[in-house]
């Protein structure tokens, strides 16, 4: 088997591993934290904090 054919298989394998890593981590995070925490981000926090400090 030529080097490039091996590299093709390596690319398939590494892609699958990376995809699996993301999916497993996603499932773990979603089951470990509440939806309220995960989606609590709001824009303008830095600006609001600066305003509070200067008040």
């Amino acid at each position, binding site marked *: 088997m030529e080097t490039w054919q091996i590299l093709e298989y390596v690319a398939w394998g590494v892609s699958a591993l*990376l995809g699996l890593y993301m999916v497993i981590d996603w499932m773990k995070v979603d089951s470990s934290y509440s939806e309220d925490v995960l989606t609590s981000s709001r824009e303008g926090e830095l600006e609001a904090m600066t305003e509070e400090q200067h008040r």
Partner: protein
Amino acid sequence: MADIDITSQTMDGMGPHGTKVGLLRVLGPAHVWALGVGIVLVGEYMGWNFAVGKGGAYAALIACWFAGILYTCVAMIDSEVTSTVAAAGGQYTQAKHIVGPLMAFNVGLYLVFAYTMLEAANAITAGYLISVVAGMTGYAGELDQRPFIILVIMFLAWLNYRGVLATLTFNLVITAIAFLAILVLFLSTSGILGGGIMQHTALFEGHEMPYGWIGVLAAMHFGLWYYLGIEGTTQAAEEVRSPARALPFGTLAGIMTLLIAATLTWYVCSGVLPWEFLGDGVNGSVAPLFDTARLSGSNGLIWLLGFGTLFATLASANGCINDASRAWFAMGRDKYLPGWFGAVHPRYRTPYRSIIFLVPIALIFALGAPLDQVITFSILSGLLEYTFMPLNIIMFRRKWPLNSIKRGYEHPFHPLPAVTLLALCALTFFAVFLGYGTQLVAMIGFYIVVSLWFHFWRYRFVNRGAQFTMPWPKPQGY
């Protein structure tokens, strides 16, 4: 809340509105530069040369400079608005605050489509480049490009998933190498260092403007390719340590870098490659800078520009994943899309669901759609976005005049940049219509349909008042 330290690593992005997990503020101006230039620089390595095919080498140069003016206006306007509306989503968030929800929804979609299509196009290109390397190393068989295309998307998505600092530091390194490669090629082939190989006079003679001024107009379509994506710097707004400083600095340094890179690219390539070959990006010169290096006869330059081409492609795909996911995330956070997409990873502090969701979409386009159609859809979405910008800045200045709100940067000569940008966008729409009229009409039809869907259905779910959490004064006239 008076004892909050806004530079704190543990409190970054978490504050008075009740944010428990927010995006991490860790980026500096160099990362902003790397994001903007990284997305664009692949356009110098390939793609811009279609402008030569449309109207000859001089037409490509005129298009390069006119598009340069267009994008300088974009960079100036973006720097002012984003240093004030410093939130993920970039132009989507600007539109939400300044124009209204329907414009915001459309701009958000322009952003996601432009970046996801560009990501797919870059992955296709990376697969092609790897097959070229296989051929150059003596591989006789037909290389299956699909695993490499998928690997590019999966690896960069994984990098984005794990954290923004590593993602954009990676972009900084590979973008800097790709830019330096262009400088080295220019110095080595123009006669400044060693013997020059430029043949402008001989190559241009009799071919100055092969299709006249209509060719120049047609070249404007691909003239965008020199700079398309610099506006992506705005997506880093919620992750920079100092938005007021880093965003204008990074964006304006980025457009200056690109003006230099674009002009040097045109100079070296048009001085070595005949315009008929240079202008045919399919059967002629696919990667003109690399082809110029090959004609220089220097192995060092061939390797340098080969890596430059691959790095520019990866940097662009990487920046596109970053930007598309931020736009998607911001729309989810405001419930323009399901709120589920507005989640932030508690450890990596990235919009992880948006990153994962866009992976299969990029894969479908990268594996199933033709490259030219993917690129055209990306350009058209970008062009619609640029048309929105002048209207946006005019409304921004009217609703919040200069002294009513603190800006990180105030762009000069207002409204001249806005009017210039609008005029150049109109010119470019005509140029695109000449070459891709059907796609243009189809795409506008698509955005009309999704606008109707948003107006009659989706808008009822939007966080109406709660989406505006910036501590701004009321706009004038309201």
